[in-house]
């Protein structure tokens, strides 16, 4: 991105303050205080405490339930040497990559484009279905997909056998279920992104003799890039939080085939009562989420000129 006048300011200065319209004064600080306190008490405090718990020997019940103490690098040492953790991290990456990045974005984009071009009734029907799928509570979505993909379900009937597709391809199915339940959200985000692509720009491409595909690839996609990146990050965060879907469908199994980090963390903390190690695994989730959240905030930082693209991500 080429440097622009006043575009890059220090993060501590709001643009208004830099324009000299408003300064952070005592009253401002006073007004910010409740929100700051709330943030500290409700968020930073618990998260900080959770990070502390991660390096203690706290258990859910048992001798160290109340009298726990700091155990130094012991849990970290275990984490680094825990094959299941690395496996789980890999599964998390696969789940997020395959379902959030690839699946939801591509399906969401396809749906959004379809919605733009389809006849009204089809648009209404498809739109309603995917949005309902998105609005369904994770439990319902999970049970639906569970029934759909196990023996006797539609999927195995379609495949012409009584095979148990959920247990044969667990990661594929939970990814599909996640795509199914999040594509509606993605479609809504990308649809509104598509609407911000000026029709005249696309028509200008048409006038120059570009084919539909050329227009989509060379004009629509690049213009929508900020929306797409935003969508990918949001869907990644949503998927990372979509614990219940996998938990209900497979509980991380069979074996450890779908044991993504949130599931593994839950299992350690609340099934094996190893609260400290569960907290440490949860901390890893928090760190991953923070990275994505940071990227999201960066990308979605508002630009001044309408649909002006963000340029190359610096």
């Amino acid at each position, binding site marked *: 991105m*080429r440097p*622009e006048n006043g575009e890059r300011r220090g993060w501590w200065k709001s643009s208004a303050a830099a324009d000299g319209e408003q300064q952070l004064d005592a009253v401002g600080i006073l007004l910010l205080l409740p929100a700051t306190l709330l943030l500290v008490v409700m968020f930073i405090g618990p998260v900080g405490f959770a990070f502390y718990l991660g390096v203690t020997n706290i258990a859910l019940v048992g001798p160290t339930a109340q009298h726990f103490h700091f155990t130094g690098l012991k849990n970290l040492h275990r984490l680094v040497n825990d094959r299941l953790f690395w496996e789980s991290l890999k599964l998390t990456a696969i789940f997020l990559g395959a379902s959030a990045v690839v699946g939801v974005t591509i399906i969401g984009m396809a749906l959004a484009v379809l919605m733009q071009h389809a006849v009204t009734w089809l648009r209404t029907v498809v739109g309603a279905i995917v949005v309902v799928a998105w609005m369904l509570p994770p439990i319902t979505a999970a049970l639906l997909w569970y029934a759909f993909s196990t023996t006797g379900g539609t999927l195995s009937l379609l495949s012409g056998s009584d095979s148990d597709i959920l247990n044969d391809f667990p990661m594929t199915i939970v990814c599909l279920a996640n795509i199914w339940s999040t594509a509606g959200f993605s479609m809504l985000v990308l649809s509104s992104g598509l609407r911000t692509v*000026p029709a*005249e*720009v696309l*028509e*200008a*491409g*048409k*006038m*120059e*003799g*570009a084919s539909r595909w*050329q227009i989509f690839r*060379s*004009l629509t996609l*690049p*213009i929508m*890039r900020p929306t797409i990146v935003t969508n990918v990050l949001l869907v990644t965060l949503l998927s990372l939080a979509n614990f219940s879907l996998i938990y209900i469908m497979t509980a991380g199994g069979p074996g450890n085939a779908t044991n993504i980090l949130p599931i593994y963390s839950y299992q350690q903390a609340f099934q094996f009562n190893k609260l400290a190690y569960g907290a440490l695994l949860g901390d890893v989730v928090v760190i991953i989420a923070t990275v994505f959240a940071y990227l999201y905030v960066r990308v979605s930082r508002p630009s001044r*000129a309408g*649909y*002006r*693209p963000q*340029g190359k991500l610096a």
Partner: protein
Amino acid sequence: MATVSIEQVWRRFGPHSAVADLTLDVRDGEFLVLLGPSGCGKTTSLRMLAGLERPTSGIIRLDDRIVNDVPPGERDVGMVFQSYALYPHMNVYRNLAFGPRIRRENKAETHKALLEVSEVLGLSALLDRRPSELSGGQRQRVALGRALLRRPKLFLMDEPLSNLDAALRGQVRAELVRLHGQYKITTVYVTHDQVEAMTMADKIAVMFAGRLQQAGTAQEVFDNPVNMMVATFIGSPPMNILPGHLSEDESGIRIEVLGQTLRLPSWASIKGTHASAQQVSVGIRPTDIIADTLADCTGPRARIDFVESMGAETFLTLTCASNKLICRAPGRLRLNVGDEVGLVLDVNYLYAFDYEGGNSIIDRSGQAGDARPHPTKGVVTHGTI
């Protein structure tokens, strides 16, 4: 370069006709302005020429080739959109080169042509900027450049000046005229701004409610509007329309308006089908009324409701025999609201329209258009002289 022929073209959206029965020719190298208020069908007509819309019926020809089904990319037509429609993610160079790249034109030649066009349009220094870093006028020129690089037979422009501020507008107007003079590309230009139309057009086509009302030179549509809609749309302030009465006898045509009877010059005649004595809408442009102090005036009297001083001239809003009308007065006249003035109407530019249909009744074909005589007094046959 090309000729355009539009024959009985309709464009319907459901029950609504955006363009109805449009028949229009554009000569090779002509600069045609499609003029009309918003929603009149002018943009739809332009988009049909571009190929972005398909006519519901009728035929469009470019250079005698029927192009109804030819996609926009294959029409050799360059278009400048109202919003310029620059590709926001590309710099100026890539904006200009996008079309040639899509059309797989020779890269070296494209580069050369691109530099030439940039030079002509003054874009050479801006080639690596993005649209968001350009001013409105610069964006406009990139849009023009993009259309020019198409080496089009036909240039289409959809309200290209509407996003510019007033000062820039005049400048770009002149530039467009200059470019048209330089490249002589047949151009269809859509606007709702009559000043743009009057100053740029070889021919103006006025549209209302989907229908072409009149096509002709700026002077033709100004001096001889076919109906009340054209008459009142062109000219600022708009033509005054007053209730009146038209009659004809051996001595010629007489019009009763504002309590006086005026006889039209001898070149005037009544168009074929109209009855000789009837109620009509009488039209007269504010510039064809002289308002003067009472001392030397013998015409109808009016009271001043509102004074709009423009410096060199003053527009007065008047009430005369319970009719509202606007007239132009000399600039430095000391007139106040409430004063009474006398009015003198120029019978050479008195119009009469069918009371119901609004069509022009008077055949002005005998009028010598170019030599505008001094406002004629003394044709008043009735009243105090």
